[in-house]
């Protein structure tokens, strides 16, 4: 009975959880942003060339 009681109280214990994985770092996001801007300006340049 005691063991059961211990088990129910331990399973009802409050816990604080967090994901094991980390979100992307600021640096990684900055690199992505820079690459996207370069790609967009390249695409824009190509479109302008096609018009000419």
């Amino acid at each position, binding site marked *: 009975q005691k063991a059961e009681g211990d088990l129910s109280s331990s399973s009802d214990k409050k816990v604080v959880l967090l994901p094991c994985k980390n*979100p*992307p770092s600021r640096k990684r*996001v900055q690199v992505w*942003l820079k690459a996207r801007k370069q790609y967009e300006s390249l695409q824009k340049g190509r479109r302008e060339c096609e018009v000419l």
Partner: protein
Amino acid sequence: MTTLTRQDLNFGQVVADILCEFLEVAIHLILYVREVYPSGIFQKRKKYNVPVQMSCHPELNQYIQDTLHCIKPLIEKNDAEKVVVVIMDKEHHPVERFVFEISQPPLLSISSDTLLSHVEQLLRAFILKISVCDAVLNSNPPGCSFTVLVHTRDAATRNMEKVQVIKDFPWIVADEQEVHMQEPRLIPLKTMTSDIVKMQLYVEERAQKT
């Protein structure tokens, strides 16, 4: 007037859907307002009939979605007491904690006609408070990152394990340093009481950030 209980089919799911959608918008906005990521990755969108800033970085968006996907079963069963967005400095010490305290009534008397528009109005007020919270908070040091904590019960974690995504997105018990902050300054932002959920949002800010 319809009376629903938590046991009614889909009720918990509806509440969890509403709250997770709100938390997704709130997390994006917190990351933008507190400058955790460069402003260039955020785009203006309209949510709850107000403009908000949402990230367009695929990896970050997926991370936020996976996090909320794991939390959803806990909210569905009313087992998520708090959801906390923690902003940490370079040394991984918390500098700010945005605490969403959630409680749901066991018995409901709701009118489905007015329910959703009323809840939307209340959630809009939270979004507006978050978008101007930088006025009452001190600047964060450079190089901050973030994590999301969920306060629940040990037994409830089994509900989480049923979610498929958890296999690739495991959760662990937080360390004391991630949960507590020394002598934080408490800034209440917003409280709401509706038929389906009670929620309060406050920020705990570290006194010395640098």
